């Protein structure tokens, strides 16, 4: 089982779109896949038409009293399940903090799912907090959508510092460009110079595209309502690059 967190300190950069669309592709490839919606706004739950409601809320969930398996719901797509969000997730930090070993809590909760899923995608809320630390400890890969602006790169540096400061061993940060607008000179400039400073950037990029925005009306992953477009190809490339990284690492 591989755990992949779609994470960025900044909001509105494409974390949810990434988690939802890559999870869909993973399931299509044949992997048993789970999306965990950790954001109280419940955006990924919304995309799968699943009510953002968890019995017992964040307290019960974090305490581990009820197993995660009982809260999981099947999506409309084969091999793809979702663990919905709940409005109470807004105080996840507090709940975590009141328990033992808060930064290792998610890791422990996810462990029993190892036999049921090949991939788990975590759709994370923005910001950096105790929850983020717990996410870093639980994940194998931190997949981070970055809009090519100067400010975005600064937050990426902050994130890198944070991770190295906390000494989280197995976590691999994988940034990639998201919402790339080829008409904007700034985007192109930044993307040109960047690989020198940050060689860890993935080569696949997600364009700024109206069909990705339409996921909100369609309420389903992009590839479920569009068969072949620039955007679907971009997500497919991103997924394949991710898989290659995983395969080369496991060899």
């Amino acid at each position, binding site marked *: 089982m591989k755990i992949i967190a779609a994470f960025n300190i900044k909001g509105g950069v494409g974390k949810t779109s990434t988690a939802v669309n890559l999870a869909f592709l993973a399931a299509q490839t044949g992997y048993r896949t789970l999306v965990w919606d950790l954001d109280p706004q419940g955006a990924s739950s919304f995309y799968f038409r699943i009510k953002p409601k968890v019995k017992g809320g964040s307290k019960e969930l974090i305490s581990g009293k009820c197993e995660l398996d009982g809260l999981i719901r099947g999506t409309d797509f084969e091999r793809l399940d979702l663990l919905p969000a709940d409005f109470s997730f807004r105080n996840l930090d507090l709940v975590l903090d009141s328990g033992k070993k808060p930064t290792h809590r998610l890791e422990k909760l996810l462990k029993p799912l190892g036999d049921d899923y090949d991939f788990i995608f975590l759709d994370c809320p923005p910001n950096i907090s105790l929850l983020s630390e717990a996410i870093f400890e639980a994940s194998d890969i931190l997949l981070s959508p970055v809009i090519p602006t100067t400010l975005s790169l600064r937050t990426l540096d902050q994130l890198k510092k944070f991770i190295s400061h906390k000494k989280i061993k197995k976590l691999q940060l994988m940034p990639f460009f998201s919402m790339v607008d080829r008409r904007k000179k700034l985007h192109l400039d930044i993307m040109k110079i960047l690989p020198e400073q940050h060689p860890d950037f993935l080569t696949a990029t997600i364009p700024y595209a109206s069909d990705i925005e339409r996921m909100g009306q369609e*309420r389903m992953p992009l590839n479920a309502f569009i068969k072949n477009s620039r955007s679907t190809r971009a997500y497919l490339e991103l997924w394949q690059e991710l898989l290659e990284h995983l395969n080369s690492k496991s060899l």
Partner: protein
Amino acid sequence: MLYHFDAPGRLTTENLIAELSKKLNVQLVSQHYSLKTYFDSFDWRLYSGGILCEFNQSKPVSRLILKDCLSGQTLASADLDSIPAFAAGFSNAKIRKMLSPLLEMRALLPITTLDYTLYQLNILNEDEKIVLKIIIESYDLINSRISLEAIKGYDNALARVSKILIEAGLKPSRSSVLVDALKTQSRKPSDYSSKLTIELAPDLRADIAVKYILSHLLKTIKINEQGTITNTDSEFLHDFRVAVRRTRSGLSQLKEVLPEAENDRFSQYFAWLGQLTNQTRDLDVQLINFENYQNALPVTLRKDLTPLYDFLSVKQKQAQKTLAAKLKSSEYVIPLRQWEDFLKTPAIKKPTETEALLPIKNLADRRIWKVYKRIIKQGNRITDQSPAENLHELRKTCKKLRYLMEFFQSLYPQKKIKPLIKVLKDFQEILGDFQDLEVQEQSLKTYSAEMIEKQVPANTFLAMGVLIQNLDKRRCDTRNAFATKFETFKQRENQISFQTLFKNNEPDT
């Protein structure tokens, strides 16, 4: 999880969907015409092994599904255009590994085909989210099947739809589609087995009983005739031969029962028929054993054996062709029809044969006991120095006893006769192995002589030499194990069991 229901015949699929639509948000995903064919070996090896093999053909794709007989759950599936004849022909490894140990050398044959319309429905909630998937297979001849595929976390929908279906008169499926389909043809699964099951009443007149047994064997001969001619797989000929051999044994073992002239004439005919099939069967056995032959060789020699396989295949095809032609000739057909007529003629009121009027149980006791005593006598005479012929003689006597016990099984308590058949079977194994190894060794020598003229590479002969050595070594081992096996067979406990079961009705002589 899947939940299966049967729709009563009067309820059409359209009405059922209308009924569901009144209460639920139903989405028709697809509807198309399909063909479903069940496959199994002629002797139902998959079904006996708890597997249903379903091939669903429809426009977009054709799919093979292996299901658990009892639960109906899918065990494996693959998209395929056609079904290979043998398990080894499946490219899907999971399917191949599931089928091979069950089917072995038997071919997969279509058993029955049904046409149906396949409906796929989704039940949606107020968010237009799928909460349950429904699959309807709508048949003409049998009840339609409705399967509910639950979606994790939406048990309410499953419960709700189940309730609506039950209220509409549907019932949880009891029998499989295969069983229902066969029922429309007055058939049922496992309606052929190479095992003998003959029910006899103890006081039945011997001549009537013997004809009954022989008719049963004739049926087996006829059932396997076509598959032998077409060479569908090697076991049609095998079962055909066993039935012929049993018939011969019956005729000679129960001599004083049927009119002498017919007995002699048909004995000759079946002896001829047995002869006719020998060569093809020998070659079949060589081909079946070929993998073992290869595995018994050092890895470096294995490839060298390939020319032998090619040689055997060509030879088998020729022999089989000759045999098939014979089985279509009047030489075979006419006497067999006369045999059938003879078996059908009612018993004579006052037969002259001495044993014709005996109650069959008496005759059975007498014959079985006599042959059993002969085995003990022959076995006792065999020492470590005795020639191979003595073992072959004993093997034949054992076979006679085996056939008698199988013919007359129903006359004895199953709990008593079954273990004794098992005792005999275990003993026969070593005699059979001894004989088979000798035949294989002999045949290989004959083949190598024939192959010399065919410019076969020298290494092939080297490999065959090693093979013959292997066989010879195994034959010696088998021969050395004989004494112990015979001791086991004739141990006191077994002797007493044979005696009490078969001897008691006869006055001691």
